[in-house]
């Protein structure tokens, strides 16, 4: 059990600065997910924590010890790789025993630990098979088992589910969550899939271009994204954005774009006052848009033309256009509408986001 602390971590590959001043404090037993598009530096950060990449500058501490110069074998970590990295010439049992043999555990202890891990992961019947005789999901379990038997201070996961098909991925996601609750070991998990990040993480670290954009609990990222990138990355379908001009008039603040004029609700308007007259980006999630009813105030409604209708069963996604801006709205599945029909959408005023046009930071 251990905390992992990362201080001012930087990584350069020749002249390419891929991880920039990353600061993190991962608490004991916490499940932290690094998420971001490919090339954002999340895997490199994980590999530096594992000791597989040298640190250019900054410190990594595992359990209060600076491990920058400690080789991977002495960091007491276990890692699950995207391609599982099972040793192809060894049986499942030998794969799991390898780490313990290297650490000179006695045979009885090795057997005991393999048995326990096999029970936890339900792979007892596979112990004598070779990796090539296993399905993707089974390989994934064996890779997890190999990490579990070690009883390490920290688990590292490098996109472990991305080679599985969609259905199995959902199933393994749930199992990983259960496993973490059962074992309660500090875990760092890298993924590019925001759904995995939201469902698995106690806290989520969103990265872009080597810079941490925001660290927070999943709902915190969803409800109060720090900037436009986080807002667009977290949530599916993604948040709608519209470039607007903020202007005062009739005693209130308006966000205007061609074909769009929305009254900025009071609590946000109070924060934005200094920005009146400037450009901004308006953000609203598809689930915070609905077809306007008679009770909806006019300043929170705008007219759109339906361009595409996506029937998902539990909801309908409407791809709509208002002037130059496009909006996806998640609406009631009972709604009957047609392409090119004009509708009025209303926004949920508490869920409106505004971002500075230049810095893209949330206002």
């Amino acid at each position: 059990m251990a905390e992992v602390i990362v201080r001012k971590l930087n990584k350069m590959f020749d002249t390419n600065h891929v991880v920039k001043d990353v600061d993190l404090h991962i608490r004991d037993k916490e499940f932290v997910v690094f998420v971001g598009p490919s090339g954002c530096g999340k895997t490199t950060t994980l590999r530096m924590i594992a000791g597989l990449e040298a640190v250019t500058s900054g410190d990594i501490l595992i359990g209060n010890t600076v491990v920058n110069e400690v080789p991977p074998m002495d960091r007491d970590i276990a890692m699950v790789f995207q391609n599982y990295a099972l040793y192809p010439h060894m049986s499942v049992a030998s794969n799991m025993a390898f780490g313990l043999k290297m650490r000179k555990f006695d045979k009885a202890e090795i057997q005991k630990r393999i048995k326990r891990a096999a029970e936890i992961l339900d792979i007892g019947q596979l112990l004598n098979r070779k990796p090539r005789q296993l399905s993707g999901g089974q390989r994934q379990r064996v890779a997890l088992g190999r990490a579990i038997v070690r009883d390490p201070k920290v688990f590292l996961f490098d996109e472990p589910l991305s080679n599985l098909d969609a259905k199995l991925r959902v199933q393994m996601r749930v199992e990983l969550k259960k496993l973490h609750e059962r074992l309660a070991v500090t875990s760092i998990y890298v993924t590019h899939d925001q759904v995995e990040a939201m469902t698995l993480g106690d806290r989520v670290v969103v990265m872009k271009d080597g810079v941490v954009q925001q660290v927070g609990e999943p709902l915190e990222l969803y409800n109060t994204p720090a900037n436009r990138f986080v807002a667009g990355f977290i949530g599916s379908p993604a948040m709608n954005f519209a470039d607007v001009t903020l202007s005062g008039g009739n005693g209130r603040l308006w966000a205007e774009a061609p074909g769009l004029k929305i009254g900025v609700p009071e609590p946000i308007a109070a924060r934005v006052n200094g920005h009146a007259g400037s450009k901004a980006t308006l953000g609203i999630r598809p689930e915070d848009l609905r077809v306007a009813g008679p009770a909806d105030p006019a300043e929170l409604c705008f007219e759109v033309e339906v361009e595409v209708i996506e029937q998902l069963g539990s909801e309908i996604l409407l791809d709509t256009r208002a002037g130059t801006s496009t909006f996806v709205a998640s609406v009631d599945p009972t709604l009957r509408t047609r392409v090119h029909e004009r509708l009025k959408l209303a926004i949920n005023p508490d869920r409106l986001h505004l971002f500075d046009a230049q810095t893209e930071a949330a206002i």
Partner: protein
Amino acid sequence: MIEGAVWRKWVFYNIPLILFVFVLLFPFYWMIITSFRPDGELYRPWNAVNYNPFWTNNPTFEHIEYLFEETNFGRWMLNTMFIAVVSTLISLFCGVLAGYALARLNFPWAGSLGTMIFITYLVPQTLLFIPLAQIIRNFELGDTPWSLILTYPTFLIPFCTWLMMGYFKAIPKELEECARIDGASRWKAMVYIIIPCAVPGILSAGIIAFTLSWNEFIYALVFLSSPDQKTVPVGVTSELIRGDVFFWGPLMAGALLGSIPVAVVYSFFVEHYVSGLTGSVKG
């Protein structure tokens, strides 16, 4: 497969295949049949009535007996085997380590060094034997098996290094990283994980190196002189071609027996050999 009319299959598939197989196998057939034909048939003029070079009704072992009784053929086989095995082992050991280093240790100039090693493989033996002869003489190794055991690696090590480098590169590096996180040092990760995964590659390199040294001619011809030190290729050609007289029967019998060990080695490891040259390891 070729689809369409039957003639297309014959013209584009069956006939070329038959020609190809014929061209490949006919020399072996000729070698075998000549080994077992008595001298009386071998030296019969082509316009004789019963001239039939492709078959014999009186097979004989006289050429094989001649080889073992009148020449040092048994000794040549042992010499060749010893030299080929030892030089292959030396070359494999060096080639595996060098190939691993060039593929995995990201030291400066690793790429250029790999290319330079390959270029040394391209230096023709017919040039290299001249300076090597000088060196062998200076070390007083002439006419001993060591003159070949130590010179064959000059072309075998670059070859094994190059082949192993490619093979190691095809093994996912995560396997090694995982082993190192699991508690293995780089050396142990190599010994326990990477080398076992590379066995098909090592076998391929070994088989080819063994064949190259088994068949090697020019160094063996230059560095060995006494009849009981010779290898099969040199012994057979120098002892069974006297002046302009070719002892065809024993020559072909020698070639036949000399090719058996290579054929055995190939057939024994053929599965590994093919996967070593074509396949890679999946994690």
